[in-house]
């Protein structure tokens, strides 16, 4: 124990906190992905009047571990004609932005790896990086389906980044801060979703669903059209990394929605972290609910929806909020 104290003394408290936080984040990421795969299968199962996994462990709870083990044990296949450096790189860099985003999310009043005063910007900047990895995966796979999926993904992410940003800005205006903890603390007077920002919440949520490539916006991996889209050629652990990143992205998108619109960790009786997870997982459930209800939109409709409806409405909302605040 005293070794640890010595180490902390040497590297400084702030750095130690960062390292510990990152380890914690890694654990959360993995556990979250495991839980979410189980939840998704159960949710889809019951929505389709099936039961979902049930054989491995009670209620199939161990199933994600079994799947993870299987994926770990699989041979890492590399198709013959891939662009090897890019092909290997993509699953690695799909994960970095995800980890960084976690650093600024306040799980509780004190449970935050680092409170950066430009928290939103960090998240937005890094989340747009994930599209790069998809593009690299699609290009490096040297597969036509992958390439189509990747190009779709780029167009989609560019189109939906804008409403995403525009819907978060009014909240930052109202909170007068870009720090995520400040935004939560301001909501002690009432959640932003009820304080004139309901439309911003809707727009954010739709855009976030699109950003995370979930049905009805799952065009990059549109199963019935593109087989598996950008990760057609990936298998084993490389595929698992994409999978992990997808579920972590869903979690982050929901966590940001919770932080910005649903009062983050605020809530009566229960500890803050519990409230945070309840709210976040409810939103995750809604995203899953979307997936198991809707068909997929078409590519041009997707872009039209963003450019013709979401962005104008988000802009109007932003100007309105800014105007009212200024007055």
């Amino acid at each position: 124990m005293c070794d640890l104290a010595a180490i902390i003394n040497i590297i400084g408290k702030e750095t130690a906190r960062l390292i510990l936080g990152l380890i914690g984040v890694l654990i959360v990421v993995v556990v979250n992905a495991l839980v979410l795969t189980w939840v998704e299968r159960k949710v889809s199962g019951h929505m389709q009047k099936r039961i979902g996994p049930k054989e491995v462990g009670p209620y199939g709870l161990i199933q994600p571990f079994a799947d993870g083990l299987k994926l770990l044990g699989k041979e890492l296949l590399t198709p013959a004609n891939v662009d090897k450096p890019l092909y290997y790189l993509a699953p690695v860099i799909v994960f970095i932005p995800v980890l960084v985003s976690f650093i600024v999310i306040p799980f509780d009043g004190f449970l935050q790896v680092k409170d950066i005063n430009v928290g939103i910007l960090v998240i937005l900047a890094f989340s747009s990086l994930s599209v790069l990895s998809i593009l690299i995966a699609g290009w490096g796979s040297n597969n036509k389906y992958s390439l189509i999926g990747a190009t779709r993904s780029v167009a989609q992410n560019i189109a939906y980044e804008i409403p995403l940003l525009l819907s978060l800005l009014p909240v930052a205006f109202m909170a007068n801060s870009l720090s995520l903890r400040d935004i939560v603390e301001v909501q002690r007077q009432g959640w932003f979703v009820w304080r004139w920002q309901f439309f911003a919440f809707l727009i954010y949520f739709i855009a976030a669903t699109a950003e995370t490539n979930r049905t009805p916006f799952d065009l990059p991996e549109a199963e019935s059209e593109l087989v598996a889209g950008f990760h057609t050629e990936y298998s084993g652990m490389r595929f698992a990394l994409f999978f992990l990143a997808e579920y972590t992205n869903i979690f982050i998108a929901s966590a940001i929605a919770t932080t910005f619109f649903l009062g983050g960790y605020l809530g009566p009786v229960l500890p803050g972290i519990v409230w945070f997870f309840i709210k976040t997982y409810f939103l995750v459930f809604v995203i899953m609910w979307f997936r198991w209800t809707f068909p997929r939109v078409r590519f041009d409709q997707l872009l039209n929806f963003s450019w013709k409806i979401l962005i104008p409405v988000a802009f109007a909302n932003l100007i309105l909020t800014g105007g009212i605040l200024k007055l």
Partner: protein
Amino acid sequence: MVKDVIIGAISLIKGMGVTIKAFFSPVVTVQYPRETINITPRFRGHTKLVADPEDPEKTSCIVCGMCERNCPSNSIKVEGEKKEGEKKKTLKRYILNFTTCSHCGLCVETCPVDALAFSADYNPADFKKETFYYDLMLEFEKRKKR
């Protein structure tokens, strides 16, 4: 435009209502190896030999070969022998190649003495092809003993 968006949103919410209702309603699937459903009496599994109503020790097969000739896939081989002191041939071996059988029931239908029937064996599985070259005579003997 605004109207379209609202109508669209309502239709989406309606759809979500359907799935959430299903989410909270009981499942309809049967957890197969743990639970099974009843096989209907007319189920057409592989064929089996039926005991002679007069003499339950024997099959009523007269080794006429009708089933063998009528089988569309040549899945049946019937071998009989003529025992001493008996007028009719008796069945020695009845080989059903179940790998090529298509459950059409022509053998059951054409049998002049109704010596064949369908079994309710619905889940045969094995790694070897040879397992499915059934000798129905052996199977009949086994059933008789039980």
